[in-house]
């Protein structure tokens, strides 16, 4: 699954344009990734401001922080 870091998102819709399975809902100031996501990573790569990340990666970051703390 893909996680949205909503604070970084500008709601520009480029990720929606490249998603091959129409998994992304874009509202005026909110985006949502639906269950049918196939983890292809295209949205993650195309986002100009690094808003999206695969959930595993986020967990990795959290683990690392946990270890430092």
């Amino acid at each position, binding site marked *: 699954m893909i996680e949205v870091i909503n604070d970084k998102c500008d709601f520009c819709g480029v990720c929606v344009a490249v998603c091959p399975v129409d998994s992304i809902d874009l509202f005026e100031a909110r985006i949502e990734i639906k269950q049918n996501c196939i983890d292809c990573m295209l949205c993650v790569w195309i986002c*100009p401001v690094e808003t999206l990340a695969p959930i595993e990666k986020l967990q990795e970051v959290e683990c690392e922080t946990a270890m430092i703390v």
Partner: protein
Amino acid sequence: MRDSYDCIVVGGGPGGAWAAKHAAENGVSVLLLEKDREVGIPVRCAEAVSEKGLKTVVEPQPRWISNIIEGFVIVSPDGREVAIDTGKERGYMLDRKIFDYDLVQMATMNGVEVMTKAYVYDLIKPNGTVEGVRVQHMGEHHDIRARIVIGADGVESRVGRWAGLRTNIKMKDMESCLQMTLSNIKVDPKYIYFYLGRDVAPGGYLWIFPKNERVANVGLGISGEYARYKSAKEYLKEFIGRHFPNAAVLYTVVGGVPCATTLKKIVADGLMLVGDAAHQVNPISGGGITTAMIAGKIAGGVAAKAIAEDDVSENRLSQYARDWHKAEGKNHERTYKIKQAVYKLTDEDLNKTADTILSVPLEKRTLANIFRTALFRHPSLILDVVKVFMTK
């Protein structure tokens, strides 16, 4: 708001506004739906258009224009500046907040109804034919019917997908863009600058479009092919750090441009796609304002006629696709081939080409002349260009 219209337009950008205006002008009832709270905001654009291009679609108003551009400069990967004389052809820096707003306002003067904060989340499509839209508006859901739905919903377009059209774009053709409006800088307001090169903007270019001598839109687009290794944000941060370390950022634009050819199918039963939603963008420059308006005008006209004739079939609406192809689509196919050839050039090729062009005196440096010189000195380019023109 009624529960049915002749025509519903989804999206209040230049494409949607112009489709709505021209449908209404030809006598049908039109509702325009925009998901954001105000048309024209947020701006997702570098705001440059050619004077000639704009004049083909609308009479330019002084209040839309923040600056007039008289020429451009291409900066090669090794930093050489190549100025190009555009002769009498000028460019405008638009203020798109005002421009987009005025276009929609002009549409309303022809009777178009407008609803903002209206998020279209699906189509009504009982037997395969599109018969309306499902909208979420201020927490309420509505079904609104229409003979024809025009999807002018921008790069994020989903209207086409819901109608069953193939709207996918290849990653290499999607430009991942970021722009910052910088203040407290010094630029020559008469020139726009394009920077090329792998380190600056791979598979795209970086632009400096001045609004005046102290303020400019500085942004870049990189091909999706390269975006996976390093984001547009990183590239722009580096460039601004190097060239404008003391700038203040007044505004940030995030976005994408579909730099491909027009989608194979832009109509279905009861449906038409216009503008970015149909990939009607100049594939080299990424300019899509005037082309969206050209398409909108054609689509609006065909929609009104089709409704009057009581035939909204794909077959009837395909007149729009044919007319668009004649007006611009064919041209975009040629431009796309040139884009592919240009993006194959290495940094070294680009540096050499810059050298060649610099050997032409400035007053003779017109686009046609440069093309001839570059071809003469670098015959490998000839092959690519011949391919482009032979296959038109």
